[in-house]
């Protein structure tokens, strides 16, 4: 009875909100026990094995090592002498499915550009799994996972979704099991341009004011819900926008912030401190090289292009050494595409950055540079414990390249996802053809 005073009940116990109402239905496809041997292997975290062996079974990497690595009996043996093996590439910035091909108005589902703050929208609800771009990214790019972000028209663009790059009838059939959600935020020119004549914000200061005001609401919402979940009582009203922001404040949803300029990134970092969340990554980060030290100190990744610049004022100061300079400062450097064509050549984009970095004195190995394509992206998506490098027990997301993957003359030869062979250049039957492409000119052609 004495405890009554401290556990005063205000009403019924709290109702648990379903955090995963659109769950992944992805299951790995069957793959034979496979041993790839004789290749140069990059493990994705910086190690390289000459004449290496990679063993895949039960959907996971069983072993990675040199030629002495034991091969299980009955394994399918892939003789990869003269070839390269890497973890699958992960693109942290894609709009495939949301801005699919063909890019008609009817397919244009990437920006909910109807109010500057729309954290309530989820990119996954726009994803069209029949976008032919997915198969191009697989066959030409060796991309095994990718994050689909809503566009950058809005200060709060909505939730992202991480997909495995497997063909499926539904978005859920591609959804990466257990990957955390992301929140797309934006600063700079895009929100200004889109909302300047629609009631604002029309300036960068307007951008920040609206962003801060939105977070203040989120903090209030979080307080209300935290109290309810602890004490029960009358359920506060649900707000989908605030649900997402509360997820960020709780550290469950990762912030991916579209932001180009160094000075603006610094402001967004301070804003995140003010409001009590962490910026997991800056996307596009064209001026990251100017504040590489600040990014490293805050543990914020920079997702960057190798050579895009100048198409708008906030991209005017792009330099080709951006990626290596971020890396050199101890930061988390990522090569990203934001483009259905660029996603097919991320290995080559990394090759450019690697070469420019070396000429500027940042001497890293090829094997190390692969971190920019798989391990660092996985880290920024919160899935590095599952994929992103060839470590025993991780998902067997693997690319066999027919040469050095940093060469323009090299192509993916085979791609495994969770140990299942999803692409084989030598087998036309292992080349996905989306529903849209069936019966169209060029159906099933090499693309």
């Amino acid at each position, binding site marked *: 009875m004495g405890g009554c005073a401290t556990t005063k009940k205000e009403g019924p116990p709290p109702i648990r909100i379903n955090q995963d109402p659109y769950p992944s239905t992805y299951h790995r496809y069957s793959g034979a026990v496979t041993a790839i041997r004789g290749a140069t292997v990059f493990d994705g975290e910086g190690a390289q094995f000459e004449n290496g062996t990679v063993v895949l079974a039960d959907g996971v990497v069983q072993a990675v090592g040199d030629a002495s690595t034991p091969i299980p009996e009955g394994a399918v043996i892939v003789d990869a002498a003269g070839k390269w093996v890497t973890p699958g590439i992960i693109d942290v910035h894609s709009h495939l499915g949301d801005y699919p091909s063909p890019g*008609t108005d009817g397919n244009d589902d990437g920006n909910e550009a109807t109010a500057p703050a729309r954290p309530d929208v989820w990119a996954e609800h726009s994803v069209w799994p029949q976008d032919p771009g997915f198969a191009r990214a697989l066959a030409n790019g060796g991309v095994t996972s990718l994050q689909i972000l809503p566009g950058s028209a809005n200060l709060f663009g909505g939730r992202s979704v991480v997909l495995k790059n497997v063909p499926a009838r539904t978005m859920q059939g591609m959804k990466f099991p257990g990957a955390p959600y992301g929140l797309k935020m934006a600063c700079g020119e895009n929100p200004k341009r889109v909302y300047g004549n629609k009631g604002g914000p029309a300036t960068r200061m307007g951008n920040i004011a609206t962003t801060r005001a939105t977070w203040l609401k989120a903090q209030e919402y979080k307080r209300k819900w935290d109290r309810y979940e602890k004490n029960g009582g009358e359920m506060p009203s649900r707000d989908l926008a605030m649900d997402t922001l509360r997820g960020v404040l709780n550290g469950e949803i990762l912030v991916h912030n579209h932001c180009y300029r160094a000075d603006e990134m610094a402001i967004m970092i301070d804003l995140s401190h003010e409001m009590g969340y962490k910026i997991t990554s800056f996307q596009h980060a064209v001026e990251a090289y100017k504040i590489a030290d600040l990014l490293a100190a805050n543990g914020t990744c920079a997702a960057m292009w190798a*050579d895009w610049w100048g198409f*708008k004022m906030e991209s005017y100061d792009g330099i080709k050494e951006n990626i290596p300079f971020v890396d050199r400062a101890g930061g988390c450097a990522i090569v990203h595409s934001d483009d*259905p064509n660029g996603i097919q050549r991320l290995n*080559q984009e990394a090759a450019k950055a690697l070469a420019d970095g070396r000429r500027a004195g940042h001497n890293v190995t090829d094997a190390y540079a692969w971190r920019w394509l798989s391990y660092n992206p996985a880290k920024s998506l919160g899935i590095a414990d599952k994929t992103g490098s060839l470590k025993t027990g991780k998902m067997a997301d693997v690319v066999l390249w027919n040469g050095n993957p940093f060469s*323009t003359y090299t192509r993916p030869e085979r791609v495994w996802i969770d140990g299942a062979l999803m692409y084989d*250049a030598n087998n036309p039957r292992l080349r996905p053809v989306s529903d849209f492409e069936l019966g169209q000119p060029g159906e099933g052609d*090499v693309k």
Partner: protein
Amino acid sequence: MKRLSFLAALLAASAAPLAAQTVAITGGTVALGDGSEPIPGGTVVIRDGKIAGAGLNIAIPRGAEIIDARGKWVTPGIVAGFSRLGISEVDLSADGSTDDRAQNSPFSAALDIAPAINPMQTTIAVNRADGVTRAVVAPNIGRNIFGGQGALMDLGADRDPVTRARLFQFVEFGERGAGAAGGSRPATYAMFRNALREARELSRFAVSRGGRAETQEDPVVRDPNESRLIGPNVNRSEDIMLTRFDAAALVPVLQGRQYLMIHVEAANDILNVIKLKREFPTIRPIMVGVTEGWTVAGEIAASGIPVIASAVNDLPASFEMLAATQSNVGRMRDAGVNVAIGMIDDNDTRYLFNQRQYAANLVALGKVPGAAGVSWGEALALITSRPAQVIGMGGKIGSLNTGAAGDVVIWSGDPLELASATEAVWIDGVRQPLESRQTKLRDRYQRLDRSALPEAYRR
């Protein structure tokens, strides 16, 4: 003040090397750009701004500056087969910096892009530093299907960028053309036919230019478009759609004295262009884009119409590109089409340097069953001599053949590999600076430690 001093420094830096030298580049792997395989241990001689010889056993003129290129590669400069270089600095929300289109001008075909080409634009230095030495520059369309008259430019660090003004008229067919013409392809063809008939009417009164190529004349002193309006009788019918200047500008197109560069992607549009050439036999079309070209490659080859294609478009990005494949260029070549690489609607303002990446990717296709790639020599030709040939400049630019412009690049390695970089660039025999805003920013932010003064004092 800062801007002034920056410009002054730039001029000072480029003042010294602006004369054509006699140069012999020896010992490098020499690739002529004409489709042949590279020649190890070759020599390239540049004299009087032109190629004096390239290959093995080339005599070195007395007094030539000798540059040891052992371990390096030597090629002609890269030719951007299609671009908007030098006419647009920043595309988005920076109106004053762009001249590539005139949405609200009453004029279309009459527009001449040459005066818009600003050799000081940062896009040029960035591409020059990556070995691009010439570029086809096309205007974008504005109020109708005609964009105006495009040019060939050089990327030299001087104030004289135009190699050939008014080399071609640019026109959009296909989806964009349909939109500009009023909403459908029939509207495009009606507008096009009407325009050429207006030009025909006007051409009867045109002053004879004695057959001399009009593109050679100085547009400022005597504009041939305008001089065509000074005939004895320039009255026109009342039923006209084009301004007088626009109709006059189409006279050389109709007479085949100026190329007609047509953007098309779909097979159906390509075939329609071939039919138009039968209707107007005097026109000299060049097709650009041509994503579905491989599906009608035989017809294109038979028509003799040359093509500047986007290299690696492989997405059904629109309904006119459903058959897109990276094998397009290789298959067209195999069918005998005169094809070069350009970057139409693909970062055509500032990423022309990526042509060598794309050309190399076509080599890579050679190992993919079912795909059509090209040889290494052909890949280099696709971005050097082939675009030159397509625009009627074969032998004059884009190769190391004797007599061609002295546009030469020394690369640290295979020029089609991204690890390779330019080590020296000549344009018209003039050694070029390889500095750009980008390299200066890179140098400024090489170190981030706080020093006595802010970064702004670091140059």
